[in-house]
Each structure stands twice: as structure tokens, then as C-alpha cells.
């Protein structure tokens, strides 16, 4: 009843549309540059791992992955830990300026990164964080913290108030209640929030590129280096691209059962 005629066909066609460009990238990553440039082949006729080997053996390449993952993880941890108490406050209490504050937070989620690129550059240079993972992690907080607050507020609101009251009656201090009772109760919510923080930090490039130069350069920025004297190194570019998809794909696989729930709150 809740499906539509021809739904299988629609779904299959749409999934193919989603997968085809990705397939093409994967396909190219296993080809040699000669094969890419000279022939149009639907699968690699002379499959090679050369492109991947270069990435894994060249430090300037693989350090990009480490850099990216570092700032993404730092950002996720910061976002969740500052957002949790705030989510609790917004969910349970009314206080001076709460609504405005909530709106202001959300509006930052919507702020264009391009606006902040330059001021961030100045700011983080001034406090000597430029070209460190911390700069990027903190910069990404501007959109991830509001998002985490928003998602977590929904999950905290799902916890009945009586649980707090009982815990306080039982003599729990606030921090102990928070860590021992509330956090385990909304564990799946924290998972969902962490997923989205990870996601948005992982996919963002403009700020990440602006705030780094050498030491903390993210993988996505390093990818632009594939132009060499011999022309474009397509195979290498494709291999690097494939490798940036993998962490995301892994994360999705682990949270697949929570995705619908996270979205269900209508809070993404």
C-alpha cells in the first residue's frame, strides 16, 4: 500500500545512476594511464595496482589520509562533548534567550564556508594554529556543533523526565547522572550525531584547504597535485578518489540501521 507501481524499476534505475560514476572512478583506478588515455574500456584490460601502490608508499600521499582522519576525529569528539550538556539544557530547561540562542546556533550551520575562509585564515594564523589539524577541527565546529546540539536535543527529549528526577532523588550528582545514566540512554543518538559530524567534516574541503599548507594538508587537497609535467595522472587521481570514499562507506555500513532513525527525527 505504501509503495508505488514500478517501484523496483525506479529504485534499480536510481541506484545504477548513483553507482555508475563511482564505478567509473574505481574502474579507472585499476587502469594504467596509457589505457585510460588511448582506449575506452568498460573494465580494466590490463589491471594494475600501481596507482594504489604509489599512494601507500609515498608519504606525501598517505599522510594526507592521516591528516584528514585526525581532524575529523578531533572535530567529532569536540562537537559531541560540548553539544551534550547544551542539548540537555535546551531539552529540559527554559532560560533567558534560549530560543534566540538555538536559532543563532542553527544559523551557523547554514553559514557559507566561503564567508569564513578568509577570517579563519587570519584568526588561526594569529593564534599559531595554522596548518595544524586543530585549526581545521575547530573551524568545522562552526557547522558541526549546532548540528550535534540539534540531533542530540531530539534524543534527550525522548528520555522521560522522570528518569532525571528519580536519579536526583537517589542522590546522584549532576555529572554522575549525566555520565552514568543519560549518556548510556542516548547512546544511539550519540552514534547518529557522531556519524553526521564525521560526515560533514570529512566531506568539507574549502576550509580544510584554506587552513593548511604543508603539514596538515587533507587528502582531498593533495589530490589536486596529480597534474605533472607529463600531463594529468588520471589513474592516480582515481585511486586517491576511491580511497577517500572508503572511510565513508565503512561508516555507513556500521550505522546503516541507525541512519533511518537519525533522519526520522527530522533533525539533520
Amino acid at each position: 500500500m505504501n509503495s508505488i507501481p514500478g517501484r523496483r524499476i525506479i529504485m534499480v534505475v536510481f541506484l545504477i545512476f548513483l553507482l555508475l560514476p563511482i564505478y567509473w572512478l574505481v574502474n579507472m583506478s585499476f587502469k594504467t594511464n596509457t589505457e585510460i588515455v588511448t582506449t575506452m574500456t568498460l573494465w580494466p584490460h590490463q589491471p594494475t595496482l600501481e596507482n594504489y601502490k604509489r599512494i601507500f608508499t609515498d608519504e606525501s600521499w598517505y599522510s594526507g589520509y592521516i591528516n584528514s582522519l585526525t581532524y575529523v576525529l578531533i572535530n567529532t569528539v569536540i562537537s559531541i562533548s560540548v553539544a551534550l550538556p547544551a542539548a540537555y539544557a535546551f531539552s529540559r530547561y527554559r532560560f533567558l534567550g534560549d530560543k534566540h540562542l538555538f536559532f543563532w546556533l542553527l544559523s551557523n550551520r547554514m553559514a557559507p564556508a566561503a564567508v569564513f575562509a578568509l577570517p579563519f585564515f587570519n584568526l588561526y594564523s594569529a593564534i599559531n594554529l595554522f596548518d595544524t589539524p586543530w585549526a581545521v577541527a575547530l573551524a568545522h565546529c562552526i557547522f558541526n556543533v549546532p548540528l550535534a546540539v540539534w540531533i542530540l536535543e531530539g534524543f534527550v527529549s525522548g528520555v522521560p523526565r522522570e528518569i532525571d528526577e528519580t536519579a536526583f532523588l537517589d542522590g546522584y550528582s549532576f555529572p554522575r547522572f549525566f555520565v552514568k545514566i543519560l549518556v548510556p540512554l542516548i547512546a544511539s543518538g550519540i552514534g547518529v550525531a557522531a556519524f553526521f559530524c564525521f560526515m560533514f567534516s570529512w566531506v568539507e574541503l574549502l576550509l580544510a584547504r584554506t587552513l593548511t599548507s604543508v603539514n596538515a594538508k587533507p587528502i582531498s587537497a593533495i589530490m589536486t597535485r596529480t597534474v605533472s609535467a607529463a600531463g594529468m595522472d588520471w589513474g592516480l587521481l582515481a585511486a586517491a578518489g576511491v580511497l577517500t570514499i572508503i572511510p565513508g562507506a565503512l561508516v555507513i555500513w556500521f550505522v546503516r540501521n541507525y541512519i533511518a532513525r537519525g533522519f526520522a527525527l527530522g533533525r539533520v
Partner: protein
Amino acid sequence: MDKTVNQKAWFLVLPVFAVVAFSAILPLMTVVNYSMQDTFGNNQFFWNGVGWFKELLDPSTDLGGRFLASLGRNLLFSAIILAIEVPLGIVVALSMPREGWTVAVCLVILALPLLIPWNVVGTIWQIFGRPDIGLLGYTLNSLGIDYNYVSNEFDAWATVIVMDVWHWTSLVALLCYAGLKSIPDAYYQAAQIDGASRWAVFKAIQLPKMNRVLLIAVLLRFMDSFMIYTEPFVVTGGGPGNSTTFVSIELVKIALGQFDLGKAAALSLVYNLIILIVCWIFYTVMTNAGTERPEKKGAA
């Protein structure tokens, strides 16, 4: 609903406030400061008052012309992708399998494009669309369609739009899917009893129950498409000519390319203001939609 008043809650919000204020207010103050000044480099600044803002809104000047043109392009782009992605997302959500392992597979594949770094999305389509080495470009050209996103404006637009549809329709679809999942079976059963047609079920049950998630989907898609930078920048670099130069691309060109801080700052402020206003309208509509059905929120 029955929140208690407690000003101490501010202490709980303080960390968030500090982090976001550090990232938002300080830089914004810099921007406001710059927007009133002119610079010839070497850290020499001159007071320029509201000069940049005047220029920005006057299409006859270079800055104003560029800003308004890119703004127009951006609005057109947002309108087109909303018109495609929202209905398509709904259709895809309605086409989701109901149960079994296929659900997980569909969800994972749907979510996949969302987790690809934006410049890689650009790279994927840059490769995919190339007439020499890309499957799409090659196929189109061998079918006799002269397709080249580097030199043809229409092709460039088409590529950027298809890329955005590829990248973001899943978000709309997943939101709608979640909205659909939350409809109790009794609604469908009642509709069957009432003899409702498939279309009537959609109009009377599914669409109204999805309105909240749809509003969020439209908001997110509007905002993100209005700020789009990375993907078209990688694919077309804003070209051919300036045909795919959206506001963010223009802004970065002025700020980081020409280091024209004053102009860039003024542009930033106006840009941000537009977004803030749209955001506020959505927020108001959304909170109103929430208060309309208090008992439903309580049940959830």
C-alpha cells in the same frame, strides 16, 4: 513541553556558546571591520565606510555586476535543483523496498554519495563527463550529441545540475523515507477501508505526514545549493566564461585570489544576511508547524 525555567542552564550551554562564538563571532567582526575599509596590500587600510556595500548593490559597477550576476545564477541553480531533487527524492523514498536485506543495501548505496568529499564528487564527474576518457561524455558523443562541459555553457550547467542531483537527491530521499516510516500502519489500513486510491493515499496521508521532513529537506538543499562551491569549482572552475560562477566561487576569487579584502568582506556580509533571513523564515515556519500539533509531538 513543560520545561522549567532555570537560568543555570546557561552553564550547560556555555561550552557550545564559547566554541561557536570563537568560530563565528570573532571572524565575523573581522569581516565587518574589513568591509568598511580598502587596502592596497602591505596591511595598509583606508576607511571606506559603506562604499563597498553601495558598489555591491549597483549593477553598473564591476563588483556589483559580478555579485548580482552570480547571485542570479545561484538562485536559478537552487531553483532548478530543488525542482528536480524534491520530487525525485519523494519518488525514490516511495520506491524503497519495505523489508528484507534489500532495505539495508538501498540505504547504504543511497547514503554513499553523501559521504564522498565534495571535491572528489567534483573529480568523479569531471572524469565521468569528459568526452575523451569519461563514460558519460564518451557515450553522449558517440551517440552524436556534441557534449563538452568545458566549452559549452549549456553542457556545463547540465553537468553541474546532474552532479548535484546525483550528490544530494539521496538526502531528500532518506529524509522522506524516515518520514514515511513513521506513519503508523493504521493510516494505510484506514485509507484502504475508506477506498482511497493510491494518489489519494499520497495526498491525504503521506504528503501531510512528510511535510516536516520535506521542509527540512528544502531548507537544507536550498542553503547548501546557495553556498555551493567545491563541486562546480572542481568540474568547471566557474566556466566556461563565468557561466557557472556562483556566489561562493566569486567570493573566494575576490578574497583569496585577488586579496581584495574589503570587497570580499562586504560581499560576505550581504551573502550571509540573505542566508540568515531565509533561515529565519524557515525556522519560523517550522516552529509554527510544530505548535500546530502539540499532541503529536507529545506522543513521539
